[in-house]
Structure formats: structure tokens, C-alpha cells
């Protein structure tokens, strides 16, 4: 009896204790737990914007977003990643490349970002995983829009590609705007116009269950999709240039002389940018990186080549402008040139010599001796100053990243870079576009366009217009500068000489003469390796990678220029026979569009 009463008292006290515990949880800490409960069920989800599309000038889609399934793992939600991947590989093929990519991406991601272990799943693979999903916490099949470049290597160097955001990029981007975004433009147009293409993030407040499934949307602020870009790029020209280059490595840059719009920008070989979107396998990347042909290298804006004889019209113009030579003044070419008091023979490409040469013939036949003499009388300072106005030695300012500036040598440059004085002989070889002189294909095309425009220098650009959110299309701004006053007669004299390069009987590019329009151009050959004083350069015996680069610059039609083009064919040999026909095909495709089927 007594013990039962004791028990009753114990029961009463214990129940009161439990009630106190409830009071503590439900009343004293109510707010804390309410917050936790809300945290549990309400999630703020970023809604990534759809990336803007990129079109060429005909409206052909160059970059789009295609739905694709990927198998994603969120490491924070997956207990044992190694076993999970092992088990996954039993239902869905996962190869070594997939594993390596996963490992690499895992080191670079943000916390709670999911990373793909497999990309581009087939419908069957999606179904097979769906059946087994319960076995894999933290693993989901995600349908997402993947960037796709339908024209693959044709546009690779122009557009660049998008790839997963890495740690360094994370420091630079606006974290909240990119909260739902996994990819970012890595190079090319995709990178320059990242801000426009990306758009702004949307947000939605959703109620989720314990498995993270969204049950309903509480609040929604839709994302602002990225803006579409319309390029000047003309895929017909781009394809024609690619094709014309055949198996050669090289670059073609074509510019609309009236707008500065880049019509074609080819660097060959290219690569498939789609490989990079979800992370390229290290094996494929190694192959691309280590290839002697350097497919990842954008020759059109980063390749720096000696301009060779293509620079002669500009130097001729400099001679006329600076008054050191008149158009008809003659120089005798014996096949070599010697500085007074020096033994060294500066050779002409024609061993037997050109004989008496005035400027016109010197351009048409590309006489080196004439230009050695002209360069010497001009001097490196005046030569440098004049060529600078055409953009040699500095970046063109195109809307692409990674452009190189080339090199227009000067006394000052040599003193700084080499800590040596300038030697007179160096002026001579600069006069024929050799020596230290380096240009990029884009720079050459831009300088040619400036020549075609008789001094109006327009900054080259890729993007013609941008689709604004309000539905209108905004054209990008044309930026141009006028060269210091040049005598109009001088322009015409040089241009006429360039026209005779194609149309003259002895023109170095006479074989590309067109019946439909007039072309002004200049061939060039850039030495890759130096022939010693007592040796002969014999194309047949020189191994392929040491052969000369073939160059050609041109614009057309001469009377009313519309297009300027620069072609560089690596190890192609002679400009007139190899580079000029490529330019002709590009010009044809542009100027004879009507003839296109």
C-alpha cells in the first residue's frame, strides 16, 4: 500500500518533469524551433536565366541551349562517394574519363553544387537510373540546358565556349546573380559578352519535403534571360575560308571595310568546343594541347607572324608621305643590297635582280632591294611612326579576349627589350617585313581595311547587334579614327600598284584576277628560318615545319571597297600561289553572293 503511494508520487513527479520539458521546447524555445521548421520546408531557389543565343549575319544559330540529361552527385548529400560511383557504374556506363572529370570538377566547385558523373544520358540510361534512384541518396538525373555549338570547329576560335565556373572565376563574378548558374564563358565571344549573354537570376520560394522535392511555389520572380547576340560573322565566308585552307594550318581574317565588322575569322586547325562544355576529359585535352598543330591556339588574333612583303604598300606610302621618295623615282636592283662599308649582302628573293625599279613595279613584283633602300632612307623612326598609325604593334581592340599586339620594332623598343642599340641593317629587314616585325592576321586585315578606306581606321568587332529585353535590337557602336592627313594622290598610287599585283602581267598574284570585280592586294612570304649567307633556300629539301609562311592581303572592289582580307598559310610557301587563291575564294563568296545557289 505504502509503496503504491510512493509509486504514484514518482509517476506524478515524472509526468510533471515531462510537461516541463514540453514547456521548455514548445513555449520557451518556440521561436527557435519555428525558424528551424521554416528553414526545413521553405527554400529559396535561384532560377538560372537561359543563356542568350548567338547568330551569324544570316541568322544562322552558332550557339544554342539544348536540353540534356546529366547524372549529378552532390557530395554533401552523398555518404560514400566512391561506393556510390562504383554502384552507379553497374547500371550506367561510367568510364575512366568520367571519373577523372568528376574528380577535377569536384575540386573546383562551390559547396552544395552538384557535379556530373555522367553527361548526355540516353533515355534508356535515365530510365534505368530512375528505377534504382532510391539506392543513391544525393544522386539525381538533371535535365538541363547545355550549351551547344552546332558548327563545332568552324566557330570554336570565334565563339570560344562555356565551361563550369571555377574557383578563380568565383572570385570575380557576382555570386548572387550566378547562384543558379553552373557555366560561364571561358573565351571568345562567350567570354567578352558574358554579361549580356548571362542575363539575371530569378528567385523562387518553394515548399519542399524532406527529400527536397518541391511541393509548391510560394513566390516566384522569373529570371531575365540573357540577350541574344548577332555577329557580323558570315558563316558562308567562314566555311569558305576553312575549306580553302585545306590541310594547311593558318588563319584568315576578313573585315567589312565599311563597319569594321569581322566577316570571317578562321584559325585552323580548330577543335570541337562542345567537348569543353561539361568538362573535357583529360585525355582528350592532352591530345589537343600537345598536338604540334596547336588546335587550341587562336592564330587569327594570337598568332604573331612576320608580315613579309605584305607590309610593302604601307612602307611605300610612308616613303611618299615623308617625301623621301617620289612615285616614279627609280632604284637599281642587282639582286642584293649592301650597306655602304659593309660586306653583308641583303638578298632579293629574285637572285638575278629586278633591274631598274620604281615604286609601282617594286610593289607589283615585290622587289626587296627597292625596299631595303627605301627603309634605309626613311630610317627606323619615321618608318615606325608611320606604321603605328595603321595599328601595327598594338592590339586592334576587337571584342575578343587574348588578342596579341604583334611587334613593330623601334629604337626605344630594342633598347628596352634587348638592351642593345638599333643597327642600320635591322631597318632594312624591317622594310621587307622581316626581322623583329610581327603582326597578327587580324592586325593585317585591319591595316588593309584602313588602306582600303584611305585612312579611316575602324576598330574591328564581332558583334553587330544585341537583342534587348524590350524586344528591340541595339547595334554596337562603330569606333573609327582618321589617319593624319595623307595626300589623296599617294593613296591612289599605292592602291593602283596593289591592283596591278593582281591585274598586272608580272603581278605576283596575277592568277587570282577576277572578271567580276577588281582586287587590290599584296603577297608576302615570311621566313621561318634563316638561310645562311652562302646557302640556298630550296623548298623541296626544307622540312615542312621550316618552310616559309605564305601571306596575302587584299581588299575589293578597289573603287568602292567592301571587304578586306588577310590570309596566312603556315609553311605554305609562296604567298602568290598558296595564300592568294584562298583570299580570292573568300572575296568571291562575299562579293558574288548573288551567284550563290
Amino acid at each position, binding site marked *: *500500500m*505504502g*509503496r*503504491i503511494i510512493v*509509486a*504514484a508520487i514518482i*509517476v*506524478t513527479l*515524472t*509526468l510533471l518533469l*515531462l*510537461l516541463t*520539458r*514540453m*514547456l521548455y*521546447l*514548445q*513555449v520557451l*524555445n*518556440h521561436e*527557435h*524551433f*519555428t525558424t*528551424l*521548421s521554416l528553414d*526545413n*520546408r521553405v527554400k529559396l531557389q535561384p532560377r538560372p536565366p537561359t543563356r542568350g543565343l548567338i547568330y551569324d549575319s544570316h541568322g544562322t544559330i552558332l550557339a544554342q541551349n539544348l536540353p540534356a540529361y546529366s547524372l549529378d552527385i552532390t557530395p554533401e*548529400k552523398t*555518404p560514400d562517394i566512391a561506393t556510390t560511383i562504383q554502384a552507379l557504374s553497374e547500371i550506367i556506363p561510367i568510364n575512366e574519363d568520367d571519373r577523372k572529370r568528376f574528380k577535377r570538377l569536384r575540386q573546383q566547385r562551390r559547396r552544395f553544387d552538384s557535379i556530373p558523373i555522367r553527361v548526355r544520358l540516353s533515355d534508356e540510361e535515365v530510365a534505368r537510373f530512375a528505377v534504382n534512384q532510391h539506392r543513391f541518396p544525393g544522386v539525381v538525373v538533371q535535365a538541363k540546358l547545355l550549351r551547344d555549338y552546332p558548327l563545332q570547329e568552324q566557330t570554336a576560335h570565334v565563339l570560344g565556349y562555356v565551361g563550369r565556373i571555377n574557383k578563380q572565376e568565383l572570385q570575380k563574378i557576382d555570386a548572387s546573380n550566378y547562384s543558379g548558374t553552373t557555366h560561364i564563358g571561358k573565351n571568345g565571344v562567350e567570354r567578352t559578352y558574358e554579361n549580356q549573354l548571362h542575363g539575371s537570376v530569378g528567385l523562387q520560394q518553394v*515548399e*519542399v*519535403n*524532406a*527529400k527536397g522535392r518541391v*511541393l509548391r511555389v510560394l513566390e516566384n520572380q522569373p529570371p531575365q534571360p540573357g540577350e541574344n547576340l548577332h555577329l557580323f560573322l558570315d558563316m558562308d565566308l567562314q566555311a569558305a575560308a576553312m575549306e580553302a585552307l585545306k590541310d594547311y594550318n593558318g588563319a584568315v581574317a576578313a573585315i567589312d571595310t565599311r563597319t569594321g565588322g569581322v566577316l570571317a575569322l578562321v584559325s585552323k586547325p580548330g577543335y570541337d568546343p562542345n567537348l569543353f562544355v561539361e568538362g573535357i576529359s583529360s585525355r582528350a585535352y592532352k591530345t589537343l594541347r600537345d598536338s604540334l598543330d596547336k588546335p587550341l591556339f587562336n592564330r587569327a588574333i594570337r598568332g604573331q607572324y612576320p608580315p613579309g612583303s605584305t607590309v610593302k604598300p604601307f612602307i611605300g606610302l610612308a616613303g611618299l608621305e615623308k617625301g623621301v621618295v617620289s612615285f616614279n623615282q627609280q632604284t637599281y636592283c642587282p639582286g642584293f643590297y649592301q650597306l655602304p662599308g659593309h660586306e653583308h649582302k641583303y638578298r632579293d628573293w629574285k637572285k638575278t635582280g629586278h633591274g631598274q625599279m620604281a615604286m609601282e613595279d617594286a610593289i607589283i613584283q615585290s622587289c626587296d632591294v627597292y625596299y631595303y633602300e627605301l627603309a634605309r632612307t626613311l630610317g627606323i623612326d619615321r618608318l615606325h611612326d608611320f606604321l603605328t598609325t595603321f595599328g601595327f604593334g598594338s592590339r586592334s581592340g576587337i571584342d575578343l579576349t587574348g588578342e596579341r599586339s604583334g611587334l613593330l620594332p623601334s629604337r626605344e623598343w630594342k633598347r628596352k627589350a634587348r638592351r642593345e642599340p638599333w643597327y642600320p641593317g635591322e631597318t632594312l629587314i624591317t622594310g621587307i617585313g622581316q626581322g623583329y616585325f610581327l603582326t597578327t592576321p587580324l592586325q593585317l586585315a585591319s591595316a588593309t581595311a584602313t588602306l582600303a578606306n584611305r585612312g579611316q581606321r575602324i576598330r574591328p568587332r564581332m558583334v553587330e547587334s544585341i537583342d534587348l529585353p524590350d524586344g528591340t535590337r541595339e547595334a554596337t557602336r562603330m569606333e573609327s579614327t582618321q589617319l593624319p592627313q595623307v595626300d589623296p594622290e599617294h593613296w591612289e598610287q599605292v592602291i593602283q600598284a596593289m591592283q596591278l599585283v593582281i591585274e598586272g602581267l608580272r603581278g605576283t598574284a596575277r592568277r587570282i584576277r577576277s572578271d567580276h570585280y577588281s582586287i587590290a592586294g599584296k603577297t608576302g612570304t615570311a621566313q621561318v628560318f634563316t638561310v645562311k649567307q652562302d646557302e640556298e633556300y630550296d623548298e623541296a629539301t626544307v622540312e615542312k615545319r621550316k618552310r616559309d609562311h605564305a601571306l596575302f592581303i587584299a581588299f575589293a572592289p578597289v573603287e568602292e571597297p567592301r571587304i578586306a582580307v588577310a590570309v596566312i598559310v603556315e609553311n605554305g610557301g609562296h604567298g602568290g600561289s598558296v595564300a592568294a587563291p584562298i583570299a580570292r575564294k573568300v572575296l568571291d563568296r562575299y562579293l558574288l553572293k548573288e551567284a550563290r545557289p
Partner: protein
Amino acid sequence: MTGISFTQESQPARPTGLLAWLHLDLPLLTGLMLLSGVGLLILYSAGDQEWALIQRQLVRLGIAFGVMIILAQLHITHLRRWSPWLYIAGVLMLVAVIFFGQTGKGAQRWLDLGFFRFQPSEMMKLALPMMIAWYLAEKRLPPKRRRLLAAAIMTLIPVLLIAKQPDLGTALLVASAGICILFLAGIGWQLISLFAVSMAALGPVIWFFMHDYQKRRVLTFINPENDPLGAGYHIIQSKIAIGSGGLTGKGWLNGTQSHLEFLPERHTDFVFAVISEEFGLIGVAALLALYFFIILRGLYIATQAQDTFSRLLGGALTLVFFVYLFVNIGMVSGVLPVVGVPLPLISYGGTSLVTILAGFGILMSIHTHRKLLPT
């Protein structure tokens, strides 16, 4: 023996009517029915309004109440006579489980008897207190040391067998039944304190014999935030459910923790968290009051029992019911480690339901088969 006379001739009027005829105790029956009703109400919410679940639970309740009514008809002297045999059979079956048992949820608990599966440990919840009560009631109380030791060994045998399955929850309940009887039998306070101290000292030894998952539960209990997505998840989510319920609750069917599946085991062991979330402190207090009423009635019946066996058994069964309640709520609210003990009469599931109501059947039998004494 109690010294109460069994030969009284003149008897006051017995209660009459259907309940009396069925040997049922009205207050107890009302309390149990109310509790079962509350249980169904909660089950409807916690089980995502699934009627099939309700139907299955109704069938179980029917069976359990049936068992209760049948046991209420048996005179306590029969039960008393069967006690040792029931205990021996129970221990044998527990041994059999070790050799022939069926495995379910990582533990060997079931014995397949061909036509139905049977959990001998569940039977032990009744057989052990009956056995100890029978044994101690033979001699004068309080028991001598030697008998106490014997009773302790009788308790320990099934408890160890059950703990080995492993089924810590049931072992705990069976052990508590034995301890309750010893307490009610009036063992000295020095012994009680000695027991408490030795239990504390045995802690590390018990730890050594625990399974990994059991150790993890204890560690999780000490610090659930250690592993919020793993072992601590249950406790954290359950505390969130209880705490966010507040004073008045989120309302029936409106608990977000349970309906959005954050709360695990929400219609079985953690159903109390659903009640707390949807009905708040007020609902919890009302529920505890209902339990309190049933326990007090059970203890009252024990005080009114006319022999030592009935008194000890009735008191122990009531206290075990309380232990159920305490361990479950303690676990769900995070003051005790997670042990698989259901909330009596409310958690979904049949086995414990039958045992609990069978216990109340015995209590009703104790109360309604009294020889009425002159007042």
C-alpha cells in the same frame, strides 16, 4: 498471504449491468477507449490520411480489446496458477528464438509457429511480472535477501535473452516490470540506493557489450548536432516538430514537419512529436492528463486488490505502462536516448497493443473478481 478473510457471507450489492457482467472497469475502459480514439485521430494525420492504415489499426484494436475482455473474465487465481508455466514456456521460446528465430529489421525476434509469427519477448512483458509476483507472494513481504536474489535472477534471464536479439526497448520494459515488482514488494531503501549506484557503475560495462548502433544512439543522444543528417536526424527533427508546435499547435493535419516527411517514424515511435506539433502544449497536457488518469486508476485497483499476488501484479502492470509512456516521450523530446518503445495505445502497430491491453484485462479481472467485503 494477506490475512483477509475469504469466508464472508454477507455481501453488499455488486455493480450490475453489461459492464459488470463482462467484468469490465468503467473508468479504465473509458480512459483506454478515449486514448485509442485519440490514437486513430493522430494516425489519420501522421499516416497521410490513408484509410487503409486506419482500418488495419482498427482491426488490431479490436483484437487487443478482445484479448483484454477475455482476460478480464479469467479469475485471478487461474492466472496465478499458470504463472510459473507461462514463464518457463516464455524462457524456452526465447532460447528457441536464438536458434530458429526469424530475422527482421536486423534483429532476431520472431518465432514462426507455422500459422502465425509470434514474438516471445512480448509475452515476457506479462509472464515475468506474473512469475515474480507469484514467487514473492508465496512468503511474507518484504522478501528475504535470498528470495530477492532469486527474483533478480528470474528477471535477468529473459532480459539478457531479449537484449541479445537485440531488442533493447523490450528488454528495458521487461526489466522494469521485474524492478517494479521488487519495489512494490517493499525492498529496503538501502538496497534501492545500492542498486542505483551499481547500475551507474555498470554503465561502462554495459557500454562494452552494446552493439555499434546502440552506442551510436547513446552518443547521438548526448550530442545530436554531431551528425545532423545521420544518427542525430531523428532527434533534431522531432525536437523541431515539438518546439514549432508551440502552445496551441499548428492544427490537425497541418504539421509541416510530419506532412513534409521531415519527421521519421512519424506514425510509429515518433507519433508523439506529431501530436505536439499539431496540438501544441495544450494538447500534450491533455494527453498526459489522460494517461495520468489511467495510471492512477491502475494503481488504485492495485491498492484495492485482495491478495498480494494481485496487488503486486496490478501495480507492476500499471507501472510498466507508465514506463512505456516515459521512455517514449523522453526519447521523442530528447531527454532519453532513442530506444524503440512505442507510445502506448497511440503508436501504429499491433504487438505491443495486445500486450498492453492484455495487462489491463488482468487489472480489470483483479478488480471485478473481488469478493466484496462488508464495509
